[in-house]
């Protein structure tokens, strides 16, 4: 019988079944300060312990300040949440990469960087962007706090098998078209619930040629299409990336041999759904609305709600509301949209390659005088790597702020947020109303598009700045 990669990982983790539901073993459980406190309270209340503290890894990311870490945290509620996680980890014997750790960072950035994320494993975390780890051929998905408590107590999770969805990405990739543009284009094509009830496996030449960091960007935003998880079959790039990391297992090479044999969808494996995406002709993508499917080509205009909705009354209303919230007029060229803020960061786009690419655009230029721009590396390790390459100097010279690692302005929990009416070019993953701050207006773009927008004060087609390159 032929099987998909998803089915193989699923089957190898079933402990028991009940009707259509299965109890799955969890290989890795990442926790952070926001979705774990009530779970630990629940454990204490019921006198339970953490079943596998050795498979549970904690860091602080959502709430941490991104300015000077030597200073105390001023926001008392943030401070309490961060201290609570540290105390809980101490009490239950869990490894934590805290505020001062050289390994602190966004949980989905540090998992792979530390070699904790491994192919063929099941990974859960109280965060929807856990889908990121699927880039390594792991079945990884976000859960809520009740499930966090369940996993802490039992190292298992009850769940139903999803449908399988194969997205084949082919075509010629221009260097200005990043993984971010491609995933925005996919969500624009299939919609925010296009992946609901499915686990997406991304395949095709473009995916094969992607670096691991690009694969992470793609899998990261699978949740924005409503998918349970995103998956990419591991290959030599995957194995190379995870070799010689802090937590790479001692028997790594023999694991690699096994993974090579098993971890791929069999030839002729059947998927419940399948689509082809050709990227040869796509342009840099810019979101204009309040969900991640409301996206235009940079060469295009803000759509007219009637055209956009294609006679769907719900979509018509959504588009009108979105334009009202965003303060945009239909017909406006995307490149005429001025911006106030730029955020290069988040678990979608704050890895070393993202910063290297952005720095190439920025080098020798200055941020527009009316724009405030910040760069928030995904982890302390990314920050250090970038500084070793001198990227921080390029950014600082251009008047970008160079910050400490964390989730930051992606969700505006710490001091980094938009003011009402402020418009931001952001490399994050959600443009929901109020996501980056009450009344804030988010345009989702790639790191190079964000960098270019910072310099010009409005969106520009970044391909024009890279003309020698391609």
């Amino acid at each position, binding site marked *: 019988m032929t099987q998909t990669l998803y089915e193989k990982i699923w089957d190898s983790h079933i402990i028991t079944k009940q009707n259509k539901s299965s109890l799955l073993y969890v290989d890795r459980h990442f926790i952070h300060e926001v979705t774990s406190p009530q779970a630990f309270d629940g454990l204490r209340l019921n006198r339970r312990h953490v079943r596998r503290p050795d498979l549970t890894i904690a860091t602080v990311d959502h709430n941490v300040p991104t300015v000077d870490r030597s200073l105390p945290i001023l926001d008392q509620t943030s401070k309490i949440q961060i201290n609570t996680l540290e105390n809980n980890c101490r009490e239950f014997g869990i490894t934590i990469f805290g505020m001062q750790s050289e390994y602190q960072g966004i949980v989905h950035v540090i998992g792979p960087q530390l070699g904790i994320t491994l192919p063929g494993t099941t990974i859960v975390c109280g965060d929807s962007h856990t889908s990121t780890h699927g880039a390594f051929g792991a079945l990884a998905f*976000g859960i*809520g706090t009740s*499930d966090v408590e369940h996993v802490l107590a039992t190292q298992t999770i009850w769940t139903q098998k999803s449908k399988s969805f194969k997205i084949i990405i082919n075509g010629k990739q221009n260097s200005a078209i990043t993984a971010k543009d491609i995933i925005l284009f996919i969500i624009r094509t299939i919609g925010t619930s296009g992946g609901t009830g499915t686990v997406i496996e991304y395949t095709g030449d473009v995916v094969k040629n992607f670096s691991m960091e690009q694969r992470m960007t793609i899998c990261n935003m699978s949740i924005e299409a409503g998918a349970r998880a995103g998956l990419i079959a591991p290959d030599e790039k995957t194995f190379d990336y995870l070799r010689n990391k802090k937590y790479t297992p001692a028997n790594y090479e023999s694991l690699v041999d096994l993974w090579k044999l098993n971890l791929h969808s069999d030839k002729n494996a059947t998927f419940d759904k399948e689509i082809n995406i050709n990227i040869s002709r796509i342009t840099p993508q810019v979101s204009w609305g309040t969900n991640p499917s409301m996206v235009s080509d940079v060469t295009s205009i803000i759509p007219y709600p009637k055209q956009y909705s294609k006679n769907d009354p719900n979509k018509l209303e*959504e588009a009108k509301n979105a334009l009202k919230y965003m303060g945009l007029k239909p017909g406006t060229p995307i490149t005429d949209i001025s911006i106030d803020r730029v955020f290069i960061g988040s678990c979608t786009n704050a890895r070393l390659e993202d910063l290297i690419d952005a720095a190439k655009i920025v080098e020798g230029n200055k941020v527009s005088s009316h724009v405030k721009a910040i760069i928030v590396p995904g982890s302390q390790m990314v920050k250090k790597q970038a500084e070793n390459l001198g990227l921080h100097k390029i950014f600082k010279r251009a008047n970008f702020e160079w910050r400490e690692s964390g989730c930051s302005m992606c*969700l505006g929990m710490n001091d980094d947020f938009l003011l009402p009416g402020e418009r931001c070019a952001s490399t994050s993953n959600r443009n929901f109303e109020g996501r980056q701050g009450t009344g804030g207006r988010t345009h989702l773009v790639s790191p190079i598009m964000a960098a270019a927008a910072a310099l010009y004060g409005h969106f520009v087609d970044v391909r024009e700045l890279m003309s020698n390159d391609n």
Partner: protein
Amino acid sequence: MISKVIAYKKNNIDTDTIIPGKYLKIHEYDELAKHAMEGLDSSFRIRTKDCSFIIAGNNFGCGSSREHAPIALSYSGIKIILALSFARIFYRNAIDGAFIIPIEIDQNTYNSINDNDELDIDVQNNKIANLTTSRTYITKPFPNLVKKIIDAGGIFKLDV
């Protein structure tokens, strides 16, 4: 269960709309509830005094895995949400924590229930009676295990 329904007839009501990120530092559930839906509907708190149901379109609860979303709605007094479809993490959180009962409805049911209608929702028998219009609707039964968790009052009370 009999109560009135608040209609938000739109798709993609996301978790940042239900409870914005800046409130995720709040651990007291009643305090969290004060900010539920504040960006979408400033009258939400007042309306929950006599409305325990919400009706909404596709993909309700999309976005973040924050369980604060069903918690904030639950502690505002919402017991049941009827929607054309739910985002999966929200759906799980609502059921596992026994905060909200999420019920998927079809397009006809969606079209014929209006804001402020009084509904009698029979979760056990998958029926909705619209007392305002005297119409009745059948809803899709819950999957087996989901039903067991709902009946048990959350995943921790489940006796498998």
